[in-house]
């Protein structure tokens, strides 16, 4: 990875027990530069300390994970966010991704996988859990079945390329990037670029499902 050997990370999470657990699991591999359990202090401290990666809980008192993203990204677009959640509801996940998070993982992830995800997000790549890949496939397959329901600003953004579809399917089946690369006989780098391109579509697409999932969340 192009990042320094020990990425500086910041934890935003309202469960102290979970924060301690993450700290223990990541151990010496990272440098934890700070922790916060609420939106306001989190924005303040992140803007002050500018970590490489922020581990961000989706459900946060005081506006949710998106509020943190909105408070930090305009000032420090280089800070990368990795969203963590227990809920797995599409509206939570999609909303936080569309607000600018570079990846999404479930809290049940193992320590090794968490570290890998942190590295990957730190290097500027996207991290998709199988569940997120499933949501994306679901959202992008809707229009093809029923006729596209978008304002059609950029049609490229509103559909997945066949290759992106294949990559997402394998991720949804539980394959790691390395296994996806082997199965499709492409390089891991190519897999990463496909996933990043899907992430971009996910953030910019005006597809009905995605916007609805995202706005549903904001209303709550």
């Amino acid at each position: 990875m192009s990042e320094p050997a020990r990425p500086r990370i910041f934890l935003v999470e309202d469960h102290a027990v979970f924060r301690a657990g993450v700290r223990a699991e990541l151990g010496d591999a990272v440098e934890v530069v700070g922790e916060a359990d609420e939106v306001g202090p989190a924005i303040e401290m992140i803007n002050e300390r500018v970590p490489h990666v922020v581990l961000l809980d989706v459900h946060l008192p005081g506006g949710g994970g998106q509020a943190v993203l909105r408070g930090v990204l305009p000032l420090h677009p280089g800070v990368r966010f990795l969203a963590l959640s227990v809920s797995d509801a599409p509206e939570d996940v999609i909303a936080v991704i569309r607000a600018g998070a570079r990846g999404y993982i479930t809290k049940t992830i193992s320590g090794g996988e968490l570290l890998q995800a942190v590295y990957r997000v730190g290097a500027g790549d996207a991290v998709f859990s199988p569940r997120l890949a499933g949501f994306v496939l679901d959202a992008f397959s809707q229009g093809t079945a029923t006729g596209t329901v978008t304002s059609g600003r950029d049609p490229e953004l509103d559909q997945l390329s066949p290759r992106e579809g294949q990559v997402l399917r394998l991720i949804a089946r539980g394959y790691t990037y390395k296994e996806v690369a082997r199965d499709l006989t492409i390089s891991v780098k190519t897999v990463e670029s496909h996933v990043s391109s899907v992430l971009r579509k996910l953030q910019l697409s005006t597809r009905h499902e995605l916007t609805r999932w995202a706005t549903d969340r904001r209303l709550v």
Partner: protein
Amino acid sequence: MVMGVPARDHRGIPKSNDPSTTTKTTAAETSLDSCTSGPWSRNRWEGSWSHGRRRRHHPLQGLRRSSENRVLAGICGGLAQRTGIDVTLLRIGFVALGLMSGFPVLIYAAMWLVVPLDKETTNIFSRAVNDRRGLRLFIAVIPVVVVAQIVISLLHIGFIGIVGWPVFLAAGLTILIWRNASEPERVWINDDVAPMLSLGTERQGRAKLMLRAGAGVLLGAGGIVVLIIGHTTAAALRPIGGALLIIAAIVVIFGPWWVSLVRDLMSERQARALAEERAQMAAHVHDSVLQTLALIQRSSDDPRQVVRLARGQERELRAWLFEGRPPGTIGDEATTLSEGVGLLQRQVEDDHGVTVQVVMVGECALTDGLRALLDAAREATVNAAKWSGAPQVSLYAEVERDVVMLFVRDRGRGFDPDRVPSDRQGIAQSIRARMARYGGTVAIRSSSGEGTEVELSMPNSAASPERTPASR
């Protein structure tokens, strides 16, 4: 070790919009699968090669029917490979000549019988000579041919007369072919013939019934027209009286024999149905009782767990024996695929203490085939939970236009699918046979140390996928 890997896996899952393409792939996969696991394994292959090398004097000596390039028996495909002539030309030639005289049809059937398939060393004929009942059926066809020939010659329908008897004989030969084809080929023929046979089964729709009735009326009308046009005077109908006498004679002589043959066939069919029933029962018992017994052995140091398992099993068995609800199946409590998958997830997580991570794309109503798919998926998940040693099993299901794909993946120790003893019920009965009964297919990829993935695919013609926005 990779087993029965269909080409589609390297392309991901094909989003095929053409149902015929999909069914073809599936059929090929099935035959491929049974080739690898069945009795037609490596040593027979090798035998075939050395056999072919030893004597190749005659141009047709090494001729093999093509298993890839085939419409019916793969003869044109094999001939094309052998002679270098374009296969389409050969096919057109066969059909054209067949329409002219009927002999090529007989030759084709005979070649089907005598020329072995490219993956096998023995031809169908070598098995057919030992099939006494098949031979009797074939011989029983000969009087029918004679009768038909007499009638036709009396009616002066020369054309049908010429085409007729080779075709009738060829039809007789197909009895021998069907009865003695190897298992992979049978599956294959079955897939091609099944749509035609479904016209005649009880479970036919109105449309099919109308189609059949319409075809019958047309044929009958055609026959009457031919009779009236061909014989304007009543006197000319007299020979038909003679023909009827001869037919009566033949029926009197051969009738009882035919009846006994039909009776034999029926009892054979019953026996087959019984065997299938037994296989289903074995699959059920394996999924419920044997699984529970294995669990009990593993948790023998925890008496409360043992009691809990035994109680649950007892309840299930009672429900099966006295209420007819098969154990280890996804019952009526689930009506959609996602409900069924959720149920499966809960059951396996409760019983085996592993995490089942579910990802679903799309949704549709449960059919019998999809219930079988879920039962097979549960068996695969339970196997992963029990044997792989991995704490988590991934389950991915996707509803496509005309097929439901389901993948069960673990990152455990893996196994060699070729080494599983054939008497072990798990994969053979509870997964493969269960899927095959509803036209589904199975592919298992596993390698030691890297875990296992079971790919299940079930055609889903009954319901078009309805997407739910809030996928689980």
